[in-house]
C-alpha cells in the first residue's frame, strides 16, 4: 500500500491484484484463505462421501463383490484419511482463519504469508494423496497405518507417510501462527478471560497440534524409512517392535480426535448463547474443561491398543485415564444444556445443529466410555461398534457443530442469510440419515461384524445384514441432504436475503464490523471492556440482572454500538501485501514428495532446491512494500548489487 510498489528498480513486480485468479494464488488475507480452506474442504468431503458410498454399496448385502478386496481396502483407507485430514481438520482451520482475527479484534494473523503457506501445503498434499489412485493404487493400510503391514510395498503406504507428513507441516505452521496471533494480537482490553470460548478452543487445539504433530511426524518418517529405504524400525525379523509404531501413532492419534472436536465445542459455545439469548453458563468452567480435555487427552492414547501386546498394568492405567476424560466433557455438556435453560430459544438452523451436536455427541461419548471397559473392549475393538462410536463423535459431533458454524457465520462472510426453510430440511434429513446410517452399526458390531472387512460374512446372520442395509439407506438420505445444503450455500451466496450487520443479535466482536468485513477488518481497532463485548455495547443490565437496551438514541442507530468504528480510519493501516512466494515455495514440495516416495534423488534435489529458492524469495521480500520491517530502509546501493538470489 505504498507508492514505492511500482517504482522499485531491479525488483520483480509485486502482485497486488484485488480480484481474479492471481489474487487468490497470492493472497495473504486471512479471510480469503479461510474461504479457500472451506471450498477445498467441500470438494474433499464430496470425495470422502463417494468413498463411503462405495463402502456401503459393497456391504449392503452379505458376500457381495461389487468392489474387489483390493479396491475396497484402498477406498476405506482413503475415506478415513480424507475425512480426518482433508475434511474435519481443515474445516476447523477455515473457521480459525476467518474468525480468529475478527473475534480478537486484529487485522490479520501474525504471519500472513505463513498462513498462505499452510493452505497451499494442505492443498498440494491432498492432491498428492489422491494422485496415488493414478500411480499404482491408493494407500490401503487403513488410516492408522499399522506397521509392519504398512511398510510392505503392496500397501502403497508411502503416499500416506509422505502426504500426511506434509499435512502435518501445514498444521504445525498454522498452529504456531494461531498461537502467536491469539497470544499476541488481541485488541486492547481483551484479556484472556474476556476471550470468546471459540478463541480459547482454537488456542487449546493449536497447542494440541503443536505437541502432537511432531510425534506423528516421527512415526511417519519411520514408516517411510522402513517402507521405502530399508530401515528396520518396525521389522520383527531384526528385532524391531511393531507396537512402537502403535504407541507413536496414538500418541498423536488420540490428541488428534480432540483436535477434531474442540473447534466444534468452541463453535457451539458461541451459537448456543446467542440463540438462547443468555451468556454461556459457567464460562470459566467451560474454558477450564476444554483445557483439561486437551491435557488429559495426551494421557490416554493406549486405549486404542487394549488388545495389542500390552500387559495388565498398562491396560488398567489407560482405562482409568480414559474414563476420567468423561468428567471435563460432562462439565461442558451440562453447561451447554444449562445455557439453554431459562433462556429464550430461537430455533434457527444453526441452533438446531447445535442442539443436534449436544445430543449426538453425548451418544458417541457414552459409547466411548464403554470402550474403556477393557475386558469388554476386547469384544468391541475393531468392530462396527467402534465405527459407530467414532462416527457419532466425528460426524454427529464435529461435523454437526461445524455446520452449525456455517449457518451462523454465513451472514458475516457474505452479508446474506442462508435460506432457513432449506436449512430446516437439511437439518432434519441430516439427523435422520445420520442416525439411520450409524445407529445400527452399534448393533452389527456387537453381533460380531469386524471393521475393515471387504465382505460382510453371511454367517453373521440376517439381523446383521439388515442393519447393514439400513446403513446404506441412511447414506442415501445423507446424500440428498448434502445436496440441499450445497444448493442452499450456492443459492444464498448469490441471492440470499440481505442480513444486515447483526442478524442474530450476537454477542462477540466479529459482528462489530461490517458484513462482509473490509480487507483490513476494522477501521479502528475496538477497545474491549467486557466478555461478550458486542452484547455489552448493545445492552446494559439492570439491578435484577435483566438486560436492557443501551439508552440514549442507541436504538435507532445500528452504528452506535460500533462507536469505535464510526470514527475515521486509523492513521495509516498497513496490511500485508499479496505474495507469490508461499505458493512458489510449496510448488517445490511437489517434486520433493514424489521424490521421497519413489526414492528418486534427482526429484528430491529439485524439490529441495526449489523450496529453498522460494524461501529466499520469501525472506527477501518485505512484508508490505514500502513498509519494510526496517524504518531505515532507504534505497541501498548494495541491495541491488549484492543480492543474488532472485
Amino acid at each position: 500500500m505504498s507508492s514505492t510498489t511500482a517504482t522499485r528498480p531491479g525488483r520483480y513486480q509485486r502482485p497486488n491484484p484485488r480480484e481474479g485468479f492471481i489474487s487468490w494464488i497470492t493472497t495473504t488475507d486471512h479471510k480469503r484463505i479461510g474461504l479457500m480452506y472451506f471450498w477445498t474442504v467441500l470438494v474433499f468431503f464430496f470425495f470422502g462421501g463417494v468413498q463411503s458410498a462405495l463402502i456401503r454399496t459393497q456391504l449392503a448385502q452379505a458376500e457381495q463383490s461389487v468392489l474387489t478386496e483390493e479396491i475396497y481396502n484402498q477406498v476405506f483407507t482413503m475415506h478415513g484419511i480424507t475425512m480426518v485430514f482433508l475434511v474435519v481438520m481443515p474445516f476447523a482451520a477455515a473457521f480459525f482463519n476467518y474468525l480468529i482475527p475478527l473475534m480478537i479484534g486484529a487485522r490479520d494473523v501474525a504471519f500472513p504469508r505463513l498462513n498462505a503457506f499452510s493452505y497451499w501445503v494442505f492443498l498440494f498434499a491432498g492432491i498428492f494423496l489422491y494422485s496415488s489412485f493414478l500411480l499404482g493404487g491408493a494407500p490401503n493400510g487403513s488410516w492408522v497405518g499399522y506397521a509392519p503391514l504398512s511398510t510392505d510395498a503392496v500397501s502403497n503406504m508411502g503416499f500416506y507417510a509422505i502426504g500426511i507428513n506434509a499435512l502435518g507441516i501445514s498444521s504445525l505452521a498454522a498452529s504456531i501462527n494461531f498461537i502467536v496471533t491469539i497470544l499476541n494480537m488481541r485488541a486492547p482490553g481483551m484479556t484472556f478471560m474476556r476471550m470468546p470460548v471459540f478463541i480459547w478452543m482454537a488456542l487449546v487445539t493449536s497447542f494440541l497440534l503443536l505437541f502432537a504433530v511432531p510425534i506423528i511426524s516421527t512415526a511417519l518418517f519411520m514408516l517411510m524409512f522402513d517402507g521405502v529405504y530399508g530401515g528396520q524400525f518396525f521389522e520383527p525379523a531384526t528385532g524391531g517392535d511393531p507396537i512402537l509404531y502403535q504407541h507413536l501413532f496414538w500418541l498423536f492419534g488420540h490428541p488428534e480426535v480432540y483436535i477434531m472436536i474442540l473447534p466444534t465445542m468452541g463453535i457451539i459455545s458461541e451459537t448456543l448463547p446467542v440463540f438462547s439469548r443468555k451468556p454461556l453458563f459457567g464460562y470459566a468452567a467451560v474454558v477450564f474443561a476444554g483445557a483439561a480435555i486437551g491435557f488429559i487427552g495426551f494421557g490416554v492414547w493406549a486405549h486404542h491398543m487394549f488388545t495389542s501386546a500390552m500387559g495388565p498394568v498398562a491396560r488398567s492405567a489407560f482405562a482409568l485415564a480414559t474414563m476420567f476424560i468423561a468428567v471435563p466433557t460432562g462439565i461442558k455438556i451440562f453447561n451447554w444444556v444449562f445455557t439453554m435453560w431459562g433462556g429464550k430459544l430461537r430455533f434457527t438452523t444453526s441452533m438446531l445443529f447445535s442442539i443436534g451436536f449436544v445430543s449426538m455427541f453425548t451418544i458417541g461419548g457414552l459409547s466411548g466410555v464403554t470402550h474403556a471397559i477393557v475386558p469388554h473392549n476386547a469384544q468391541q475393538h475393531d468392530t462396527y461398534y467402534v465405527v459407530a462410536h467414532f462416527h457419532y463423535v466425528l460426524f454427529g459431533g464435529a461435523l454437526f457443530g461445524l455446520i452449525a458454524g456455517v449457518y451462523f457465520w454465513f451472514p458475516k462472510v457474505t452479508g446474506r442469510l442462508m435460506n432457513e426453510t432449506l436449512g430446516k430440511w437439511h437439518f432434519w434429513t441430516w439427523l435422520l440419515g445420520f442416525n439411520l446410517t450409524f445407529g445400527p452399526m452399534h448393533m452389527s458390531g456387537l453381533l460380531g461384524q469386524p471393521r475393515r472387512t471387504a465382505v460382510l460374512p453371511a454367517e453373521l446372520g440376517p439381523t446383521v445384514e439388515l442393519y447393514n442395509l439400513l446403513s446404506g439407506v441412511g447414506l442415501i438420505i445423507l446424500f440428498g441432504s448434502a445436496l440441499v445444503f450445497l444448493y442452499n450455500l450456492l443459492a444464498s451466496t448469490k441471492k440470499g436475503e440481505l442480513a444486515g450487520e447483526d442478524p442474530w443479535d450476537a454477542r462477540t466482536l466479529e459482528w462489530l464490523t461490517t458484513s462482509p468485513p473490509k480487507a483490513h477488518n476494522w477501521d479502528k481497532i475496538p477497545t474491549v471492556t467486557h466478555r461478550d463485548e458486542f452484547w455489552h455495547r448493545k445492552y446494559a443490565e439492570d439491578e435484577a440482572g435483566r438486560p436492557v437496551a443501551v439508552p440514549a438514541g442507541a436504538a435507532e442507530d445500528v452504528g452506535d454500538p460500533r462507536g469505535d468504528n464510526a470514527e475515521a480510519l486509523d492513521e495509516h493501516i498497513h496490511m500485508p501485501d499479496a505474495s507469490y512466494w508461499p505458493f512458489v515455495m510449496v510448488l517445490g514440495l511437489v517434486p520433493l514428495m514424489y521424490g521421497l516416495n519413489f526414492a528418486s534423488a534427482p526429484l528430491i534435489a529439485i524439490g529441495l532446491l526449489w523450496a529453498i529458492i522460494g524461501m529466499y524469495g520469501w525472506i527477501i521480500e518485505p512484508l508490505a512494500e514500502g513498509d519494510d520491517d526496517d524504518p531505515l530502509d532507504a534505497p541501498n546501493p548494495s541491495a541491488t548489487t549484492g543480492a543474488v538470489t532472485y
Partner: protein
Amino acid sequence: MSATETPQQEAEHGHHPTARDYVNIAVILGILTALEVSTYFFEFGPLGVPMLIVLMVIKFLLVVGWFMHLRFDTKVFSRLMYTGLAFALVLYSITLAALYLDNFSAMT
C-alpha cells in the same frame, strides 16, 4: 512488525549478560564436557550414569538460561519450552515403560 529490535529494548530486561559472562559460561561448559568424557577413560562405578545425567542437565540449563536468555526473558518463553520438554519426557517415558516392562514378553 517493526522497529522494536533496538538495543534499548534488550536493556529493558535489565542485567543483560556481557560478552565476558558468555565466555565464562563457555569455560564452565567446556570443563563439564571434559568431566563427561572422563567417564570413558576412568572407572566411576555406579556413579557414572547419575553423574552423566546431572552434568547433562547442568549443561542444558546453562545453554538455555544464558545463551538463549531464558533467565532474562519473559516467562512465556520458559513456559513454552518447558511444556514441550515435560510433555516429551513424560510421554516417552511412559511409552518406553509400557514397551519394556508391561507387555507379554515381559510377563513370561
